[in-house]
Every structure is written in structure tokens, then in C-alpha cells.
């Protein structure tokens, strides 16, 4: 691979687009120096290659991950693509390249820097998604449940199955502020779509009642003799608090006395 030329890839930012880049890099014998979106203002000194997502090529690469590396490699690459690891495409490309060479043993070599970096990033993604399964707070707006999240990783696709089975008879929306996309669900159908702006309507009276009840419960359940702010922050970092009912104040209510 030493004789491969180095280029900068420009693609649409989607998963099929990325897999198509992998395909192109093998066809043209080019190693990527970086991956960028078309609107990315960064200027590189490397020659640029623009890649259009090609469904069949992407599928072929995706299939090859399972066949040439290991079935687990597919999941690792798919999840790895959702993480917020800096230069994640480059890490994934290097992993795929090494995986093709080494085969199934690659995934078991947990002490390998490539594998451990990706595993760690995916672990953090899964962990954040797990935290959000608990910390998402819905508000009811005329029968529809609405929630907002602000995650570091792109957790929405990971959260989807959990909420779709749990609330299979409800209609709900979860909006991701960081990645500006929303999960829409109604019985039997779901979709994750990009959404630039999202604004929740003002809560109704029942909704306000439940919020008040929940705050009252939250305050009552704490044992004063055991108060331990550090432990609470360890278990539930403050970045989650902003969008959680128990830390919010509704208009017309006394402000919450919190640290």
C-alpha cells in the first residue's frame, strides 16, 4: 500500500457515502488523507476526490466486512460511524484496511491501538445511548409525546428500537439538537429525518400538573442526611440536566433551589 497516492475525500456525510469512499479508494488505489463534507471550508493540499454515494458499491463493501473480517466488524463499523470520535472516518478506513489484511483475528486483538480506539468510541456511544434511555423526558402535546436531547454522539439510531418497542402504541418525536435530526414514530412506522429547527409548544394544564408532581417526588425521594452532590454528578453529569424536567422551572413557579 506504500505506492498508493494520497487524496482528500469529499462526500455527503452519510454511511453509504462513506462505504462508497472505501470502495473508490480500493478501485483507484488511493489512501485517504482526510474525509470532508462538500460544505466544509477546510482547504487541503491533497488532490480532492468527490464521491457520490452509490448504493450497490456501498452494499458490496458492507457485505465484505462480514465475509473478510468478521460478522462483528459490520456492527463495529456501523456503530463507529455514529460516534463523535475525531476523524472517525479515517479511523474506520484504517480499521477496514487492516481488517482485510488480518481477517477475523483483528476483532479479537483488543489491545491493538486501532481496535481499542474504535471500541472505546463505540462503548461511549452505547453508554450515552443507555443514559439517554433513562434521561429522555417527554412532554405531552395534544396526545403526542415530544422530547429533546443534546447528545455528544449520534445516539438517535441507537435509541430508536428501545423507544419504538416501549411506546409502541404512542405517537412520539425525539429531536436531536446536536445533529439536527428528529425521530418520528407512530404505531407501525418510524423515520429519522433531518430537521433544522424544532420548537415545542407551550405545555397544557395536565402536563404542568405531572411536571409538578414529578418534581415533588424527586425532591421527596432524596434523603437529607445522605446528600452527596459529587456522587449525583458522577452518576448523572450536568450536561444532561438542562433538558430534564426535574431541573427545569415552568413559568409562574418559584425557582428550583438546586446547587
Amino acid at each position, binding site marked *: 500500500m506504500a505506492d498508493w497516492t494520497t487524496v482528500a475525500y469529499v462526500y455527503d456525510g452519510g454511511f453509504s457515502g462513506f462505504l462508497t469512499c472505501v470502495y473508490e479508494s480500493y478501485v483507484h488505489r488511493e489512501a485517504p488523507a482526510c474525509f470532508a463534507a462538500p460544505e466544509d471550508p477546510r482547504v487541503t493540499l491533497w488532490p480532492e476526490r468527490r464521491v457520490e454515494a452509490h448504493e450497490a458499491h456501498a452494499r458490496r463493501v458492507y457485505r465484505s466486512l462480514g465475509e473478510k473480517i468478521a460478522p462483528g466488524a459490520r456492527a463495529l463499523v456501523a456503530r463507529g460511524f455514529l460516534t463523535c470520535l475525531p476523524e472517525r472516518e479515517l479511523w474506520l478506513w484504517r480499521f477496514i484496511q487492516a481488517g482485510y489484511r488480518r481477517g477475523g483475528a483483528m476483532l*479479537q486483538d483488543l*489491545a491493538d491501538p486501532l481496535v481499542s480506539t474504535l471500541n472505546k468510541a463505540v462503548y461511549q456511544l452505547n453508554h450515552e445511548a443507555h443514559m439517554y434511555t433513562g434521561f429522555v*423526558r417527554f412532554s405531552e402535546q395534544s396526545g403526542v409525546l415530544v422530547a429533546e436531547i443534546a447528545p455528544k454522539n449520534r445516539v438517535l439510531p441507537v435509541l430508536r428500537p428501545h423507544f419504538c418497542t416501549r411506546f409502541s402504541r404512542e405517537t412520539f418525536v425525539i429531536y436531536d439538537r446536536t445533529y439536527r435530526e428528529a425521530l418520528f414514530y407512530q404505531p407501525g412506522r418510524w423515520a429519522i429525518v433531518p430537521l433544522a429547527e424544532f420548537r415545542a409548544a407551550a405545555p397544557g394544564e395536565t402536563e404542568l400538573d*405531572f411536571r409538578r408532581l414529578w418534581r415533588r417526588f424527586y425532591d421527596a425521594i432524596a434523603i437529607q442526611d445522605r446528600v*452527596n452532590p*459529587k*456522587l449525583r454528578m458522577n452518576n448523572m453529569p450536568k450536561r444532561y440536566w438542562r433538558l430534564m424536567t426535574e431541573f427545569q422551572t415552568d413559568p409562574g413557579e418559584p425557582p428550583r433551589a438546586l446547587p
Partner: protein
Amino acid sequence: MELMEKLEVLADAAKYDAACTSSGLHRGNRGGIGTTTMAGCCHSFSADGRCVTLLKVLLTNRCVYDCQYCVNRRSNDVRRAAFTPRELCELTMGFYRRNYIEGLFLSSAVWGSPDDTTERMIETLRLLREEYNFWGYIHAKAIPGADPLLTRRLGLLADRLSVNIELPSEASLRLLAPDKEKCAILRPMAQIRDGIQVSRQEVARYRHAPRFAPAGQSTQMIIGATPESDRHILTLTQGLYDKYRLKRVFYSAYLPVSDSGLLPARQGFQPPLLREHRLYQADWLLRFYHYRAEELLDEAHPDLSPLVDPKCSWALNHMEFFPVEVNTAEYEALLRVPGVGVTSARRILTARRCGSLTFEGLKRLGVVLKRAQYFLTCSGRRMEGLRVREDGVLRHLVALERPMLAQEAPEQLTLFDNTG
């Protein structure tokens, strides 16, 4: 009384129950609302740092008993309230739909007789399951002294059952909870254990057989109100795991809620939080690390060390067991190394098939080398630049632990020297 006030009174009365888990059962969608997950899920953390996963309330806090350590004892002057089954169902559904909670934790003070109390609990859960079609997690308290048939019905509706053993010995129980008897507590525990076992066999044979307490049973006891040693408590815990097949034993540090002369004086009393923490650590060693209670503590050392965790403490007293060679050691031996947990031990087993491991590699696997370095070799070599002298190791491990204990003074452990 208004619903808001009831919720406050009855949540306040239930909060001293330590158990708040929603784990042990995977159930997909059953057509109504709700699922449960194997690992459970925390929905919030209260100001004391404990997890809030279930709507933990009492059905009522009116009680006929007079247990000295309990806030709800009949001689205590507190506000009393009771939920109607429908109120509680509406509340649970409202909270669950907004993803505030994972389910309901239903307990109750004993009002009337244990049978009456259990019947009211059954009525609430039946309404929730059948009418509201709720399939989230339900943890119910079995009331000692209730008819076994009622306990069985409760277990068919709930996912997890628990009976509180309350205090670690019979003598303490007789002293502080004169209305409760040891055998009255252990009887439902045995019944639940047998019920779970029979139900498992039936479900294996007939898929739609009714499931009795499918997420198992747990219990809890109060630590520090009575003079039992840690050794006594751990041996009891181990017995409960072995004989009663419990999923969990919870410890609850005694909080001064009473002025009774039988209990530690309220003035200046510090709840033994560190001791509780150490007991939980030891409990983990029993459940996941293949330790036995008699290995951790003996006649000469009846209490856990406040300075280092029980695993380090065991390692320091058994230096002949170490160092463990990472590349050849068995899983059980790796688990004994401080700084190596269940996850990293499994990772070591997987990773070393691809080639021998180095200290650099161990770090990438998630092994805490700050601790583990004293107890490991990689291909026969110690970590570079490391000198191992026994007192030095102890000093270093204690220093590592100190920042985590910033809030607590270790003196609290000697509390019972003059009362015991």
C-alpha cells in the same frame, strides 16, 4: 388530601428502602405500554446520589406495628395518607409515558392485617396490569405474615418480590421490632424461592405458563443500628444467596429517625455510609468475583478495613498469591487482581489469543494499572521501574483511595465499642 400532598408523604415514607433496581428481566412489547430490560435503567439520580428508577411509594403509611428503627411506626407523629388503587395507577401511567420512571415500586405499611394490606396491593397491581395494560417493571414488597396464597398472587403480577430481613440478627430483631419474627420473615422468602423455581420449570415446558416473580427476589437490612460485625453480616448475606437464591441483598446505613433508648443517640450520629459502601463492595466480590465470606473476614478481623477496599485488602494479606502472570493465568486468578474487573478480565482472555500482552496493551484494555501494577507480570516481567515492598504497596493503595473518601471520617467504624 390532595394528590400532590399524598405523593409527597408516601414517597417520603418509602425512601428509606434501599432497593431501587429494575434489572433481571427482559420483556419485549406485550401489546400495551412498556417493556423491561435485562440491565435495568436509571431515570434520574436524587440529591443523595442514589438512582431513581421506579416510582417508589407506599400504598399507605398507616401502620399497626411499632418497629423502633422505622419512620412509619405507629408511635411516631407524622402525616398519614393512603393512595386509592386508581390514583396510583394514573400516576404511574402519567410518569411512565413521560419516561420519568421504569415502573412501580409498591410497598406498604401494614394497615389492618398483613392479609388486608396484601389484598390492597394486589388490587392495585391487577388494575395496572389488566386494565391499563402496563408492562413496565413492578417491584412489590411481600408482607410477612400474609397468607401464602396472597403472596403467590402478588408474585404473579409483579416482576420482582422482596421481603425485608430488616436487621442482621434475631436478637436485634426481637429488641427493635417486637412485632416481627425471624421465621415469619424467612417463611415468605422460602415460599418465593420455591415459587420462582417451579415457575421456571413450567415456563421451560409451556411457554405461556404464568410467570412468578420472573426477575427474582431481593432483601435489605439496616446497618449500624445494632452491634453486628461485618463478618456476621457478610456470612448472613452469603447464606441468603446460597440458600434463598436471592438476586440482591441491599444494605441501608441506619439514619437516626427515632429517639428510642434502644438505638444510637440522635445527637452527633453519623450514618455509617463508608461501612455501607465497603459492604456493597464485598457483596460484589461474593456475587461476581468468586470470593467467599470466610476468605474476606475471619475471627481476628471481623470488620472490613476503612482504608482500602475489600479486594485490595484480601490481596495485601495474600501476597503469596501474586504476582499473577497475565498471559497464562486463569480467569478466576485474574479476577483476584485489584484493578482488574469482570470486563477487563474477559478482555484479557480474548486479547491474549492474538499474541502476548504488554503493560501498554493492558492499559488499552481498561485495566487500572495504578492498582494492578503491583500484582501482575507480563511475560514474566514486572512493570518497568516498579519496586514492590509490602508497606509501600499498602501506603500507595491507601493514597489512591483517599480522594474518594473525602467526605467521610473513618472513625465512625468504632461507634459501637462502648455500646456493644
